[in-house]
């Protein structure tokens, strides 16, 4: 049988440490094989991304309102002021407002994504009719660019948009003579008595605009969570599931005590991805709510942009760079903490441990 051979530069072919002609060769300790292939990408990565991060760091040491002039040097070292911008950022209410929004966004979007992703994945692992079609339908929102969907979402959440139309036809909303939408009597009474009187069917307003952004994010990202969980569930050893069945576990028990523990790496990965998404969020709040009304859906991304181009008569480069570096630190910090939480044991050991735990749970339940 003929074998296909891929041509490659001799130096780049990973040689076996064993022989040619029977003699054992010494391990090569020079440049790693394949370095030539990755060098261009490596140069671009280091040259652009890390340089930009470093330059941002430099700009963050300049005055908050520093702005490059026509003949400004690239490194305006005379303007260096030190770390004062970081202290100033921490004293800004809007910074903490953005962080609060980020945290709420992360927690809600992440929890809902995980729950819905696991449920969809579990259902579609059980040979559902037209399963492939459902998978496509669930995943499609992931591939649609937020910028394209933003006008649609603005319309969906408009006062006279589809959501209110549905609520109106469910009898939850009344339309008065002015065209204003109001909750029907009992719902209005209920919202008043649980402290949500500010929630009206005008969704893009301070009390609900953040939740509009969260809803849009959930809509757009459940597909990704579903795919990840679907793939992770396919990795679970069938023997473990069979053992659980033999021990008498029902569907819910198997899902909760066997499947979910085995999804921990995916759950952690999703947490990291969601944390980064929340921190760098820009598209949806900028395009759907413009960060408002009254900063009610402002995030760090839109805040940084606002400091540069919207909030001031002149761009505030120092301030924007400072906030960018703080965003970087937060992103790296979150990633390290979450990674550390999932580290410690090899995958094989973790699988064995989870199997033992699952068995123990079942025994306790039995």
């Amino acid at each position, binding site marked *: 049988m003929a074998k296909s051979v891929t041509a490659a530069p001799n130096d780049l072919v990973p040689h076996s440490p064993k022989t040619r002609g029977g003699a054992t060769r010494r391990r090569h300790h020079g440049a790693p094989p394949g370095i030539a292939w990755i060098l261009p990408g490596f140069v671009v990565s280091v040259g652009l991304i890390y340089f930009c991060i470093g330059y941002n760091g430099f700009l963050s040491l300049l005055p908050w309102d520093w702005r490059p002039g026509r003949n400004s040097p690239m490194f305006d070292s005379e303007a260096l002021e030190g770390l004062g911008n970081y202290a100033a950022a921490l004293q800004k209410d809007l910074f903490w407002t953005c962080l609060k929004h980020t945290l709420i966004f992360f927690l809600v979007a992440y929890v809902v994504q995980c729950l819905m992703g696991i449920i969809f994945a579990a259902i579609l692992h059980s040979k559902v009719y037209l399963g492939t079609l459902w998978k496509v339908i669930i995943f499609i929102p992931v591939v649609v660019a937020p910028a394209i969907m933003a006008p649609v979402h603005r319309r969906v959440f408009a006062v006279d948009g589809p959501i209110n139309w549905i609520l109106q036809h469910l009898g939850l909303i009344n339309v008065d003579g002015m065209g204003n939408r109001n909750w029907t009597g009992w719902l209005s009474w209920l919202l008043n008595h649980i402290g949500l009187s500010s929630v009206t069917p005008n969704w893009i307003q301070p009390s609900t605009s953040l939740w509009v952004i969260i809803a849009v994010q959930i809509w757009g990202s459940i597909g990704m969570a579903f795919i990840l969980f679907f793939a992770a569930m396919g990795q679970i050893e069938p023997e473990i599931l069979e053992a659980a069945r033999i021990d008498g576990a029902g569907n819910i028990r198997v899902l909760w005590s066997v499947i979910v523990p085995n999804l921990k790496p995916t759950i952690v990965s999703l947490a990291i991805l969601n944390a980064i998404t929340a921190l760098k969020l820009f598209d949806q709040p900028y*395009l759907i709510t413009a960060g408002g009304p009254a900063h009610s859906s402002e995030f760090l991304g839109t805040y940084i942009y606002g400091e540069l181009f919207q909030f001031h008569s002149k761009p505030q480069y120092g301030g924007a760079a400072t906030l*960018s570096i703080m965003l970087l630190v937060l992103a790296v910090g979150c990633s390290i903490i979450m990674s550390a939480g999932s580290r410690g044991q090899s995958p094989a050991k973790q699988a064995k441990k989870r199997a033992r735990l699952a068995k123990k749970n079942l025994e306790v339940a039995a």
Partner: protein
Amino acid sequence: MRKITRPLMAALAAGAMALTMAACGGGEDKSDTKDTSGTETTADAGTDAGTDAGADEGSDSTDDGTEDVGSDEGAGGATAGEVTWWGWTPDTPVAEKYIAAFNEVYPDIKITYVNYENADYAPTMQSAFQTGAGPDIFDVSAGGNVGGKQLWGEYAEDLAPYAEAFLGADWKDQFATGYVDQLTYEGAVVALPLGGVAADFFWINKDLFEANGVSTELKTYDELKAACDTFAAAGVQCFTMGTNSTDTFSTELLRTIMSSIQPDMYMKCLHGEESWDNEVTIQALQIVQQMQADGIISQDATSIKQYPESNNNFMSQKAAIVQMGTWYAQYAAEESMLGSMEGAGVSNPTPFTMLPMVAPDFAGLGNVPEYVGEADYGLAINIDSPNKDAAWTFVSWLTATQEGQQKVANAIDLVPALLGVSADWDNLGLVSADIQIPIFQQMFADAAAAPESRNLYISAETGNAQVIAMQQILTGGDPAAIAAQMEADSVDLPVE
């Protein structure tokens, strides 16, 4: 050690990704009556020979742009070349008309116009100037954070020597009062005014008013409320307004109402002579709240933008009143109105008659809000442009010749900057010329004589503070607390 390094590197990479992507996003929604962000329109008028000549001449004059002024047979610059023009205004169709008319006189100068959305203009210009890729000609306004002279003035050629060589020693006096000074920054005339603009009044759909038996002159708050009740009964939105944006259109209602309470208070606050948390501001905020409670301002005011939604509501005849300025007159011509209506989602549109209406005396104190206005924007020449001569030919023709200014006047988008020029009213194709012409003539005359500036002294910080105030007051905020926050967030600009 290795166990620590690997996740650390992964986290660093993730963080880097987050940082570099933090500001990735698209532009704002488009106004349907405006053109696509970054839309490019080119008048293909240049010939190869002309292009080469223009480029050469431009290069020669790079070091000293004033040397060749008036040396050519054209409007003081080159007669051939290629020039790029970037701006957030005018709309592309209007710019196309300007360029086409210019090319009838200068067929060998190719002008490429790129129109940006307001929100996209500043980021684009910042990047362009930083990388030396700026346009030859660009828009500059008297104030604001879109194209304010304080932003781009240092990148603009001082046009005073050019203008003096072209128009003579009394060149400033040939423009509307104050326009040139408003575009002067740190002693240099950074742009020549194309025209002026005025605001603080309403536009009404006369056809809807008449169909519902509503008077086209609403002089008091009660009359306005009664009109809105009538429109509501007919299923027509009365007054459309959008505050869900950082643009400051919605704040003009606040100013209009403040003017009806105490005419000079707004300017006093702008100049720091009064604080924003005064009784007039608080009362004005209360009136805004009352307007919402009375159904004059619709519920969706916090969730829509002035452009495109409010504009579309008006152009599609869903709403009877909108607060816009003199620039809105351009849609009164049948051709542009049909385009705007189609852009607003109307199929097979029938044009309607739109008219300006003086804002009511909101407070009932006998003060009718007056127009506020200034030079809307001017054309600047990039100080580093290699095509300064050809650029000056275009700038001077459009801003400082009767012929060019006539085109500006006929677009009825701006009050012409050059004195003695007025629109060719009988040939503009207005929907109801006999009704609209005298009213529009009065509007433009009032605009040219506006006693107060519009945006000249409004810093971005103050503008944002007012936008947030409007958003908060329309969602049930406390007027006194909102006014206090306005005072805290506003920044006064120096009075020059």
